[in-house]
């Protein structure tokens, strides 16, 4: 799949599918008992509602003409009782539904987030992060009402409707059929709207997603924007995205707002038809007065649930667009996962073996071609070579960030595809080029490496990483608040903090991918000392362009064109006067 940007909509090929609703109902299953209780209460409340007119009629027909104040009083008391009960039912129902709807939202969001954790790098690399974020936060919020109250409305009003239809037919078949005549018209109308509406709301969701993507990227990259004085141009781009949102929204509501007036119009036609048919066409007197009054009052009752259903339907169509996106994400295949019956990797001694490993990203050209080498426990291996030669790819394969296309990688003889991901990765310390800092204190950020570490452990790790002195010199020391953009930390300081984080995790295999590039040479030298004590007994892979960083490694692999071109110690390779020699002399020049 091509990489998506804020400029283009994400395609969704799947046609409208009832499956999404069925799937959503899976989330309801857990609360089905509570929901049935809520439905029953609503049903009872509704039934009581039907009693009220009976009481009123009795008061007007009997008590008032008889001037019986006592009877009027007791009927009022009865009515009050009915209302009180119905209030109790409704309150309990609202209570249940408020809880259930929030619980459902929580469940969906939890599943979505948990699934996102399993998705590989490629998923995150191929789309702007703002588009993922909007699904987790905004979209899930949108579907909340539809899943809870929407379904209750459907079931409840559905029953109501059947009930009323039954009553109408019991009173008069002919007139009931006149009322029912409105149904196909309505169905036709709704179907027409539905197709338009669905497309329109999908467009809304796409445009919002684009806007969110652009927004997030620009908040993160504010410094770059300002540096290049791009504000005016960015503003134009944003306005364009904003305009897209506005336009699609207005198209969408154009259809949504038709539903209610549409139903209203059909309903008044039907009412007119009852009078016309009842009084004139079927002949005056052919229908009794009571029949017409009853049917016309039922017709009024008949349209109320339909109105409610119409609103719910509207709500559904709007939100299906969001629901589709949520499920699309939950359905995103997890390409790198534990094999069935995978066992935990036993404590690692550190023998890492590549056997004819080939790899390519997205079926393009091969990045690695049949790479084989073995790292003995405790050995430190340096990977050097031109940028883009495949060095990062090699280390990314060891921790299974990507799966090798062919060949296999073993650690202490265990194929890494046969062991659990978490047992593999927790025994590895990986430090990448981008040192991501989470918002929180510096302490929190280092502790990320080992959650149960004490403050003392953290200080120790920071000292080993040469980070202790600058952290301690800050007014709040380790409790200094930092955020994603790193706040007042320089790039070098960020690397030291993430280095401390890696040290703290106490890995058996250490992977440093350009981890010290932004650290000055002098600091790196003291860092090296700390590193040397740490490296003892651990297998390590170090990628660095600064050759002073790697010359002391046990073995240096020169990588280019997807393969190992040279291998040996610094002295051996220098004597060989090959690629490494050229690289080294270029740097020393």
């Amino acid at each position, binding site marked *: 799949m091509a990489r998506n940007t804020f400029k283009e909509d994400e395609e969704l090929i799947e046609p409208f599918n009832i499956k999404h609703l069925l799937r959503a109902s899976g989330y309801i299953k857990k609360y089905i008992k509570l929901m049935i209780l809520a439905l029953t209460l609503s049903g009872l409340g509704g039934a009581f509602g039907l009693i009220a007119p009976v009481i009123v009629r009795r008061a007007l027909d009997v008590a008032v003409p008889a001037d019986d104040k006592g009877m009027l009083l007791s009927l009022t008391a009865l009515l009050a009782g009915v209302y009180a009960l119905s209030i109790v039912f409704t309150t309990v129902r609202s209570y249940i539904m408020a809880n259930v709807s929030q619980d459902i939202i929580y469940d969906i969001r939890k599943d979505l987030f948990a699934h996102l954790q399993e998705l590989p790098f490629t998923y995150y690399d191929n789309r702007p992060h703002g588009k993922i974020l909007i699904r987790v936060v905004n979209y899930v919020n949108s579907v909340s009402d539809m899943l809870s109250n929407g379904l209750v409305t459907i079931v409840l009003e559905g029953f109501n409707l059947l009930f009323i239809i039954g009553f109408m037919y019991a009173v008069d078949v002919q007139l009931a059929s006149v009322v029912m005549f409105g149904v196909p018209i309505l169905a036709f109308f709704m179907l027409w709207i539905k197709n338009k509406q669905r497309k329109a709301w999908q467009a809304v969701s796409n445009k919002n997603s684009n806007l969110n993507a652009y927004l997030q990227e620009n908040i993160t990259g504010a410094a770059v924007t300002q540096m290049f004085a791009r504000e005016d141009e960015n503003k134009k781009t944003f306005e364009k995205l904003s305009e897209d949102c506005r336009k699609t929204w207005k198209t969408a509501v154009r259809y949504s707002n038709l539903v209610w007036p549409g139903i209203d119009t059909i309903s008044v036609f039907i009412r007119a038809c009852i009078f016309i048919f009842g009084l004139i066409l079927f002949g005056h007197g052919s229908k009794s007065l009571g029949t017409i009054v009853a049917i016309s009052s039922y017709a009024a009752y008949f349209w109320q649930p339909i109105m409610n259903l119409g609103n719910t339907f509207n709500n559904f169509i709007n939100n299906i667009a969001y629901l589709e996106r949520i499920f699309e994400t939950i359905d995103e295949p997890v390409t790198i996962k534990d094999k069935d019956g995978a066992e935990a990797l036993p404590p690692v001694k550190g023998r890492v073996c590549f056997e004819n490993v080939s790899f390519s990203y997205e079926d393009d050209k091969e990045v690695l071609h049949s790479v084989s080498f073995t790292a003995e426990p405790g050995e430190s291996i340096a990977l050097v070579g031109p940028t883009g030669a495949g060095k990062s790819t090699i280390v990314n394969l060891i921790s299974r960030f990507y799966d090798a296309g062919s060949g296999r990688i073993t650690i202490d003889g265990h194929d890494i595809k046969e062991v659990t991901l978490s047992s593999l990765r927790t025994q590895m310390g990986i430090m990448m080029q981008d040192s991501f800092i989470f918002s929180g204190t510096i302490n929190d950020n280092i502790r990320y490496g080992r959650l149960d570490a004490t403050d003392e452990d953290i200080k120790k790790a920071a000292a080993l990483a040469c980070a202790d002195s600058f952290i301690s010199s800050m007014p709040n020391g380790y409790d200094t608040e930092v955020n994603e953009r790193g706040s007042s930390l320089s790039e070098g300081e960020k690397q030291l903090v993430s280095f401390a984080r890696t040290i703290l995790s106490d890995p058996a295999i250490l992977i440093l991918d350009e981890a010290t590039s932004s650290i000055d040479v002098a600091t790196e030298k003291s860092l090296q000392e700390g590193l040397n004590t740490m490296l003892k007994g651990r297998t390590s892979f170090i990628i660095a362009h600064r050759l002073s960083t790697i010359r002391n490694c046990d073995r240096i692999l020169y990588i280019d064109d997807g393969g190992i071109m040279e291998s040996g110690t610094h002295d051996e390779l220098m004597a060989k006067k090959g690629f490494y020699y050229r*690289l080294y002399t270029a740097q020393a020049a």
Partner: protein
Amino acid sequence: MRTDNKDKKANNKNKRMRWLYDNLKGSRALYLVAILGTVLYNVMQLTVPYFSGEIVDRFLTGEDAAQNLKLHRDVFFTLILLMVGLTILRTVIVYFDCMTYEHVSQKVLYNVRNYLYDRIQRQDMTFYRTYRTGDLMTRVTGDLDAIRHMLAWVVRAIVESFSLYLAAAVYFLIINVKMALTLLAVSPLLFMIIVLFKKSVGPMHERLREKLADMNTIAQENISGNRVVKAFAREHYEIARFDKSNTDYKETNKKTAMVWIHFFPYVETFANLMPLLMLLVGGLFLMSGELSMGEYVAISGLIWAISNPMRLMGNIMNEFQRFAAACDKVIEIYESEPQIKDKEGAVNDPERFSGKLEFRDVSFSYADGSKEVLKNVSFTIEPGQTIAIMGETGCGKSTLIQLIPRFFTPTGGSILIDDVPITDYSLKTLRKNIGLASQEVLLYSDTIEGNIAYGDSRLTREEVMQFAGLSAASRFIEALPDGYDTVVGERGVGLSGGQKQRISLARALAVRPSILILDDTTSAVDSETENEIRKSLSELPFFCTKLIIAQRVSTARTADRIIVLKDGRITEAGTHEELTIRNGYYSELVKLQMGTE
């Protein structure tokens, strides 16, 4: 103290309304039309029962109904036609009225959102250190939506409720004053409860909003930091962290709902009091003859028009408070002024600087009061010169260069370009003249061409290729299947560190700056490529002053002058030859890197 708070609250409320009113500028008349439209269709809603009542009275229940139907068929059809026609007219009004609300609210949303975005992107770095990304995003998305909802729905619902209520009340009063007053007596009580509810639900919405922003932040950082999460196999920890926030949000949502559920029985009791009074008092009035049967039926048929608006008020108040909480957050950003901005009468001169740069006694410390990062730094660079700045991690190198494009303001001293203080230039002029490739490479999810031409989108493909060539990037770019049209992900994912750095360099060169600042731009580049870049930097097709932060001696040695910073002070300055023999940091470095220790 308490009254203070009360005043503040009232002030906030006025402020919100004032702000909303200001932003309705240009649509105020149209919005008024929409409001009048709402009044109109609600009054019309009371007419249909009138016509159907007439039909029933005249042609169905009356004594000579059959007779009437035969003789006055025209009246019958006129009534039917009126009933249908007025309903259709009403639904047409409803439709256009709704669309007018949508139109106005979308217009306000559009304007405010654009304004807000522009505000945010022009804020200084101090602002960005204060607000988390997730929080800012909540303001531009969720909070703005609450404001849109206010204009599109809440206001309409309020107008609808009041007009329905008032129309029905007037109708009742015309029919029977005593009965009407009896029923209306309940409303003040109901109203009081609603006000109480509004007060107690207000703080909940503020909390809810905070929880949402928290959740947004956690999710956003998890997504952006997905590589770190995976590297440490912290998925379970992340899930637990998110779960806490998710639970918090859920619980707060539930608590907010519970506030309404707490008030609901009282509201319903009062609302149901109306039909009860109708039955009891109405019944008594019927007995005493103070009320006719026709009047009774007319009033009781419309009792919903009085009680439903009162019921709906709960929901309206909920939404209103959501709006209030969101609005405060939006206004905060809307009104925030960057501290670093153009001075009055700042020079807005599109001409190139000649490139003389002078630091005069510059000191700097961050606003959070931590230690001084730069202390009395002074130096001058003549046009066209190259200066290398070196020093240990945290010595203040990066801070120093960030002062030049005015990302921060020095706490002491001044910086001059071409002998003019940089504060006298407009930000745009200043920054357009500076090309900075920073340490942290931030690329945009766009094509490589788009990224290189970020500073000047008028660049042709040839020019883009030229600058890629200067940064030694053309070879790898051309080797990509889509070449310059390759889309790179956010933060440049898909490219190696060295590749990203070279694109960032090309981007900085592409604006042909008169002052070029390179903050350790080749740290992740292999040495051969670095040599290539160094060579092209010395032969740039445009004249510029260069400021280069470097770790490697090889980069620094050819500079006209090398400045070494330590703890925010200049400790050494001179040429490579001068510094090599001066037993300091630089000569140490030379020994270290030449492998001659």
